[in-house]
């Protein structure tokens, strides 16, 4: 178990290192001198040369990479070109907003997805199953930003039930959470149904029913527990997608989260924020995938034992 844990952690570090390499080199081939962008079009050549030297941008690219990586490991992501604040502060404050939104969306996706999937599987072949699965197929195919706009039109403008934008209260996060979570709820519902149907046809379910257990006990305790692995796989990979997908919903509802901040920085070509933001989210995603991977071993002893024996 310890060996497996260590291997996965080392792998995750390797992945983060590779992502940092790709992020740095891809974003550094961006056309235009960042110093010129930062200082504006009226800056003279001497000032540009001085600031370029101060920022270390006249050094070879590999030295720039290692100093960037070294600084980042110490929590220094650089300074924003236009906001004149440390990038890490900007990222952290906007991430907290995104985390709230993504958290609501994720809880909605998992709870709704699993409930819908279980209900559909238990009612397999009946109209309930068909209706739920048809809705979920539409849910998977609808873009989050479109759902967000439709929710704004119906809930905010027609019925005036919830705020149209902003982050003033918890209420403000409900619609963005639904818009962001719908697609993932639909995909979790589909996988839950498939996995449950697989398990419900097993002999041990028949045994549980034959010994007189109540229907819901069999469904929850015997079937759902054994159907969890594929659900965790999908739910785990959705975590990262929800976090990055929040960018689409944030721009509709004007939520100052990390996604909106990243899009704004891309538009103003604020390289340190783009670079730092990409790394920040990527690292969080890798950590989440690692946690999910380790969660498997808790849920499924076969993986734990298999890894141990190998």
């Amino acid at each position, binding site marked *: 178990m310890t060996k497996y844990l260590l291997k996965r952690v080392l*792998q995750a570090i*390797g*992945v983060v290192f*590779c*992502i940092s390499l*790709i*992020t740095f080199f*891809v*974003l550094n*081939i*961006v*056309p235009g001198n960042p110093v010129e962008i930062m200082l504006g079009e009226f800056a003279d050549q001497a000032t540009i040369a001085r600031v370029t030297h101060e920022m270390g941008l006249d050094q070879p690219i590999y030295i720039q990479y290692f100093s960037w990586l070294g600084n980042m490991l110490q929590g220094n992501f650089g300074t924003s070109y236009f906001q004149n604040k440390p990038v890490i502060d900007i990222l952290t404050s906007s991430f907290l907003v995104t985390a709230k939104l993504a958290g609501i969306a994720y809880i909605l996706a998992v709870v709704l997805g699993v409930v819908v999937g279980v209900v559909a599987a238990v009612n397999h072949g009946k109209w309930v199953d068909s209706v739920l699965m048809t809705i979920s*197929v*539409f849910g*998977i*195919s*609808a*873009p989050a*930003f*479109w759902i967000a*706009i*439709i929710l*704004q*039109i119906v809930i905010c*403008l027609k019925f005036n039930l919830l705020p149209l934008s902003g982050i003033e209260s918890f209420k403000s996060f409900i619609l963005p959470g639904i818009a962001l979570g719908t697609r993932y709820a639909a995909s979790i519902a589909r996988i839950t149904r498939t996995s449950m149907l697989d398990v419900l046809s097993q002999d041990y379910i028949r045994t549980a029913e034959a010994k007189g257990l109540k229907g819901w006990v069999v469904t929850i305790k015997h079937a759902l527990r054994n159907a969890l692995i594929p659900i965790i796989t999908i739910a785990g990979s959705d975590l*990262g*997608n929800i*976090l*990055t*997908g929040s*960018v*689409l919903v944030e*721009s*509709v509802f004007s939520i100052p989260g990390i996604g909106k901040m*990243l*899009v704004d920085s*891309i*538009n103003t*070509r604020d390289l340190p924020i*783009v670079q730092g933001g*990409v790394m920040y*989210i*990527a690292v969080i*995603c*890798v950590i989440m*995938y690692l946690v999910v991977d380790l969660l498997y071993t808790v849920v499924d002893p076969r993986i734990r034992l298999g890894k141990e024996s190998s």
Partner: protein
Amino acid sequence: MFKKKKDQTYQSYWSISWNIFKKNKVAMVCLFIVILLCLIALFAPLIAPYDPNKQVLTDRLMKPCGQHWFGTDDLGRDIFSRIIYGCRVSLSVGIISQIIATVIGYTMGVCAGYFGGKVDSVISFLIQVFSSFPFLLFAMAIMFVLGPGLINLYLALGLLGWASTARLIRGDVMRLKKMEYIDACKVSGGNSFRIIMKHLLPNCLSTLIVTVTLGVPNAIMSEASLSFLGLGVKAPMASWGSMISFSQPYIRSATYYSVIPGLAIIITVLAFNMLGDGLRDALDPKLRS
């Protein structure tokens, strides 16, 4: 006895698959929709009643009517014509980026599976790196560097989307390379290139067809998302994502402007997804039984 044997006609893998696929009504309807969408994209100039970029400022935000079936946008452009041309953008991005992703994915997957050892370790690690990428985020980063534009979209989505294909092909090839006919080819002097192209490729074809069909809707969704964020196609080119983005200030007065492009995305993505599911059911021998 002899006559009975004669009746047992030989059916190829593809004809069995087609027979199974034909029976799946949903998949057949989706195939029809996909073909229709492809025809719309191909013959857009013939179908669209107006120039998609022609601005008639006196006809701003007209509701759907006989003259403009889907109404007009904030610059007086015909939404129906823009939806038709938007179909071109969506399908071309979906299909071309998937071709790029498939070529890279197949090459990587086959090299990892066939050669094994260190090659496999390196490629498997790369697959892991690219799978850990938050896809949309890196697509945004690449579009930030390359700038908006159709060719840049093909490249960004193609270069990022190969990992899942590579993983599946690697698995297929690891299984296939133990087959006797591969040994036979090696013994008769066939080199690696010949084995990969002539023997492994046809046997991976069903996996590739399914991954491409299921990859297209993802790419279409990513294109719509990037265009929505202003990082996709260049204005004034019509894209369903950018149309939804531009419709935002008018959600009170012109609801149709936001709704219609979204429905176009849903129909297209849904058709490709269901077609992909149908193809998987028909082409995968394990699912057939």
